[in-house]
């Protein structure tokens, strides 16, 4: 049974068109996003690893080495099962720094363009054999099914279609998404076809050829030789070599790196793939022995490599034959497309761009896209050339082995990225060159039948199909040894050490706090416009600003350093890490260091630690908790505090400081002191630079009000912290200052009072004398006029005495020690005395005071303090009253309380001020007319008397004027008290 060449070509075209369709509808967004980004799709797309091996070469190898073929699957399965310690760290670095290929990773970690270029050349050389293997498999499978097809024409056609696909769906750069989703889905579809076809063929053989499991067991029992090949032919050396190469494949194969890391939709997908890919490979490997035995049972004439086709033909099933052919085609095309794409990216970043940076391009993105397309074409051309000259002569298995042992040379460097921070670029390059030279001399050249360098040295061992693994081990051992020795013996640059720390497990990069030449993001654009052109520079800087959620124009040094890093990361995704780093170093440079060392970027480190958050466990987690605790302590300190680096950069700005200054920490942390508003900048800058450690009562006008601040400063340096900088505490002393002023004022008043009391006492004596003389006068005359005059004199002297008594009572300062010794007090008398005192003042002479308090209204209290209450209330009422106004004081009592109302006819108190009038220092009077303490004193005295106070304004709702102050004090009833006292006595 055979096909016609045109039929086969047509079938190939139809299938590849289907693949185009899948990619196209995905790119058009016709499929739901959750399908496209589903972990299953990602896992299936990783099936690209198997390539043609899965469909053809595995069966060929099983025929020779029995279960030895499993090594190709078990190695990479092991690598994926170890994903948390092997692949996750690489993915973290690759995502953080946009490293799209292994060459990018090496160039970033080892800080060397040469490392990147060498990786690219190594991958390029090694992958040619792998590509040749795919082309060969497609061409041979076509010629098996349709003997009249020309393998050359088939190879060419296959390469052209792959080229077209790679250019259309792989080389497109979507600014919004770095992933090529169409490509991923198409490759996943390929994998599905592959596994579906193999399982179908396995099932058909099992049930048609062997009649089920029992039949197979019976056949195996009867054909000991067939089952024996599956167990006995495992060669330890080649098994180990294949295992190692397959394990390394997860990291170093360009197509695997591309699919695993660059096209990864989320870390969760990789976690699922860690068991998903081994499961997929298990399904691929499962039918292999059955197909082999089927081929043996049916005595198929084809090479065991192509038993899948041979058995299908022997079963006389055109559909099955076509299916197997399509499976091979899909496996080959998937691997070809992804590896050429990945390799083209590497060549672009590490061979083309370092030589020619597109300086004068109007649209750099377009230029890059076209160069990448050209490179894809060149790579496929070379693969075809290699296939035609060397590849087609070689067995599929040995092609794979040569390719993988070349790629294996990259494993030491790749593991060094995460596990060996001491490894350096000299070691890497030396090791890689050594390994590659041995690989070329012992595997590539002898097998390609060009020259055999081993023969020059009369080496007894000649490389052949049975001992290739020895040379693989020699090359990798030499590579590792040279890498280790050179790394230990040579010194790493500071830059390389920092990159190594950034890459190694659990380490944080500790950037230095240095000042950039550019002082704003606009200057970034200007400086980057030189290499990139203005449009691209602006777009890249704006993109980075948006990613970091920064404002359109940024000037804070800390944020500018972050911006610089982000721009470098983005450019790295675009141009590769070496070119990006070079560009950023050259055009976004730092200012030269003034002296030795600058401080670490504390904020940067803190932010990075914050990102780790829950990932820190054990001791690190506890330390992080401590760090958070102390940070919170500083942040919540009720005293405004900030810390400043040696260069004047603000490192910390706590909540109290935010409250005092009205400036949020986000706005100033990472900025210079000079970025603060002028009054703060002048104060803090001056204090920070000055010699003094304390500054007291510095006056600063904030929001139109004077504030008095105490400043304290301490140096941050100490035995545990050698860096400079200082911490500044700012105490707000405004309230204390106002209280001090008030205290001085009260003190002055008190001394005036004491003086007045003294004066009153002195006046009292002569007044008593005058009163006695008037009394005497009355006894010595009967003249009614004189008697009348003497009466009047006595009246007036009594009045003088009353006034003096009141004055003396008021001046006597309240004795708080006796505050609880309350006596019954007549409110009427208190009001009377207050009116007397107020009448001494020359203010408000036209005001009429009406004391309507019943004389029997008594409360239990301190008379002097209650007089003070009424003096304050009446003085306020007097100040508010118009000329000729009346102030009425009335009193009544309910069952328990005496209620006293002071009502004036003044302008009233606006509603919004009513809530504040009892607050200390709150006054509505003109400056120097009131202290704002009167009503708060009233409030506290009333509270001391277990009473309360209410203010109603307006008192007269008709005219809308007047204020009524209502006091409620516990009433005193003599008879009730006697009763209760006697009851107490009885009890």
């Amino acid at each position, binding site marked *: 049974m055979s096909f016609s060449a045109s039929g086969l070509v047509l079938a190939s075209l139809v299938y590849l068109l289907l693949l185009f369709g899948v990619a196209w509808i995905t790119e058009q967004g016709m499929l739901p996003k959750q399908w496209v980004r589903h972990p299953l799709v990602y896992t299936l797309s990783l099936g690209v690893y198997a390539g043609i091996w899965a469909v053809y070469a595995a069966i060929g190898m099983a025929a020779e080495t029995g279960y030895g073929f499993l090594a190709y699957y078990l190695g990479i399965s092991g690598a994926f099962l170890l994903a948390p310690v092997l692949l996750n760290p690489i993915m973290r670095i690759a995502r953080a720094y946009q490293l799209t290929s292994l060459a990018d990773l090496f160039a970033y970690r080892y800080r060397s363009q040469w490392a990147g270029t060498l990786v690219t050349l190594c991958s390029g050389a090694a992958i040619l054999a792998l590509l040749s293997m795919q082309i060969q498999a497609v061409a041979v499978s076509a010629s098996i099914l349709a003997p009249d097809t020309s393998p050359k024409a088939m190879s060419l056609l296959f390469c052209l279609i792959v080229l077209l696909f790679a250019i259309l769906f792989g080389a497109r750069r979507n600014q919004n998404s770095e992933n090529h989703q169409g490509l991923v889905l198409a490759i996943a579809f390929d994998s599905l076809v592959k596994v579906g076809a193999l399982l179908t063929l396995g099932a058909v053989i099992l049930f048609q050829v062997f009649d089920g499991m029992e039949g197979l067991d019976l056949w195996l029992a009867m054909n000991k030789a067939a089952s024996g090949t599956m167990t006995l032919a*495992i060669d330890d050396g080649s098994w180990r070599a294949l295992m190692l190469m397959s394990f390394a494949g997860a990291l170093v194969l360009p197509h695997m790196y591309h699919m695993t890391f660059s096209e990864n939709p989320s870390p969760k997908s990789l976690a699922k793939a860690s068991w998903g890919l081994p499961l997929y490979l298990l399904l691929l490997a499962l039918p292999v022995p059955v197909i082999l035995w089927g081929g043996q049972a049916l005595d198929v004439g084809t090479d065991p490599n192509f038993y899948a086709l041979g058995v299908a033909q022997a079963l006389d099933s055109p559909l099955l034959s076509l299916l197997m052919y399509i499976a091979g085609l899909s496996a080959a095309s998937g691997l070809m497309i992804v590896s050429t794409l990945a390799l083209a990216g590497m060549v672009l970043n590490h061979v083309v761009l370092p030589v020619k940076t597109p300086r004068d391009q109007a649209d750099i993105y377009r230029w890059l896209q076209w160069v990448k397309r050209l490179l894809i074409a060149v790579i496929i051309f070379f693969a075809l050339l290699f296939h035609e000259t060397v590849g087609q002569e070689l067995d599929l298995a040995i092609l794979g082995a040569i390719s993988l042992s070349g790629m294996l040379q990259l494993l030491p460097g790749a593991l060094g990225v995460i596990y060996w921070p001491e490894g350096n670029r000299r070691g890497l390059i030396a090791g890689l060159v050594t390994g590659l030279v041995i690989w070329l001399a012992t595997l590539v050249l002898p097998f390609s039948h060009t020259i055999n360098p081993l023969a020059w040295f009369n080496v007894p061992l000649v490389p052949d199909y049975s001992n290739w693994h020895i040379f693989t081990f020699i090359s990798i051992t030499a590579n590792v040894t040279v890498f280790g020795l050179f790394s230990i013996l040579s010194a790493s640059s500071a830059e390389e050490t920092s990159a190594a720390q950034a890459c190694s497990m659990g380490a944080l990069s500790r950037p230095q706090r240095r000042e950039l030449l550019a002082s704003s993001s606009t200057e970034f654009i200007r400086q980057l416009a030189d290499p990139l052109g203005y449009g691209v520079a602006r777009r890249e800087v704006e993109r980075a600003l948006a990613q970091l959620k920064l404002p359109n124009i940024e000037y804070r040094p800390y944020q500018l350093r972050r911006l610089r890093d982000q721009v470098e990361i983005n450019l790295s995704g675009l141009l590769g890490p070496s070119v990006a780093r070079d560009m950023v170093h050259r055009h976004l440079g730092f200012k030269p260091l003034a002296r030795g060392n600058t401080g670490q970027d504390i904020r940067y480190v803190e932010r990075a630690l914050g990102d780790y958050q829950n990932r820190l466990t054990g001791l690190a987690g506890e330390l992080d908790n401590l760090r958070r605790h102390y940070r919170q302590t500083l942040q919540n300190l009720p005293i405004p505090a900030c810390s400043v680096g040696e260069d004047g950069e603000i490192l910390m700005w706590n909540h109290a400081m935010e409250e005092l200054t009205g400036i949020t920490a986000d706005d100033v942390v990472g900025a210079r002191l000079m970025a603060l508003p002028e009054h703060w900048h002048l104060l803090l800058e001056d204090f920070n630079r000055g010699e003094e450690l304390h500054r007291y009562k510095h006056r600063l006008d904030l929001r139109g009000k004077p504030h008095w601040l105490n400043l304290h400063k301490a140096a941050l340096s100490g035995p545990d912290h050698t860096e400079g900088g200082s911490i500044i505490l700012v105490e707000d002393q405004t309230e204390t200052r106002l209280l001090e002023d008030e205290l001085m004022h009260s003190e002055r008043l008190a001394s005036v009072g004491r003086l007045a009391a003294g004066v009153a006492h002195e006046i009292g004596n002569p007044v008593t004398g005058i009163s006695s003389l008037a009394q005497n006068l009355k006894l010595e005359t009967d003249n009614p006029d004189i008697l009348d005059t003497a009466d009047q004199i006595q009246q007036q002297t009594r009045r003088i005495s009353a006034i003096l008594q009141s004055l003396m009572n008021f001046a006597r300062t309240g004795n708080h020690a006796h505050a609880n010794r309350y006596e019954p007090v007549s409110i009427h008398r208190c009001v009377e005395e207050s009116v007397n005192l107020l009448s001494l003042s020359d203010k408000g002479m036209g005001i009429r005071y009406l004391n309507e308090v019943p004389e029997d209204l008594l409360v239990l209290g301190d008379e002097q303090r209650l007089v003070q209450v009424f003096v304050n209330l009446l003085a306020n009422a007097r100040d508010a009253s118009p000329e000729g106004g009346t102030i009425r004081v009335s009193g009544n009592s309910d069952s328990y309380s005496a209620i006293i109302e002071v009502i004036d006819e003044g302008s009233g108190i606006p509603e919004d001020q009513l809530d504040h009038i009892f607050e200390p220092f709150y006054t509505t009077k003109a400056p120097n007319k009131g202290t704002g303490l009167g009503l708060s004193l009233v409030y506290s005295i009333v509270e001391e008397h277990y009473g309360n106070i209410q203010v109603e304004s307006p008192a007269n709702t008709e005219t809308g004027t007047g204020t009524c102050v209502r006091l409620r004090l516990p009433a005193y009833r003599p008879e009730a008290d006697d009763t209760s006292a006697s009851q107490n006595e009885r009890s």
Partner: protein
Amino acid sequence: MYIYRLVFLLVLAIYIFSPNILDWWTAPGNVWYSPYVIWAGLIAIGFWLEWRRDPNEF
């Protein structure tokens, strides 16, 4: 890093003894698919470890 060194040692040991392990898997008395059964067992363990893993863990 301690745990990673342990993992490294374990991987190395498994790698060195892998041919013997496979010999054991494919011992003549076993059914032909026994390597696959053991492989599937390993995948199941991998699945279980991934399933109960704290997403914030390294």
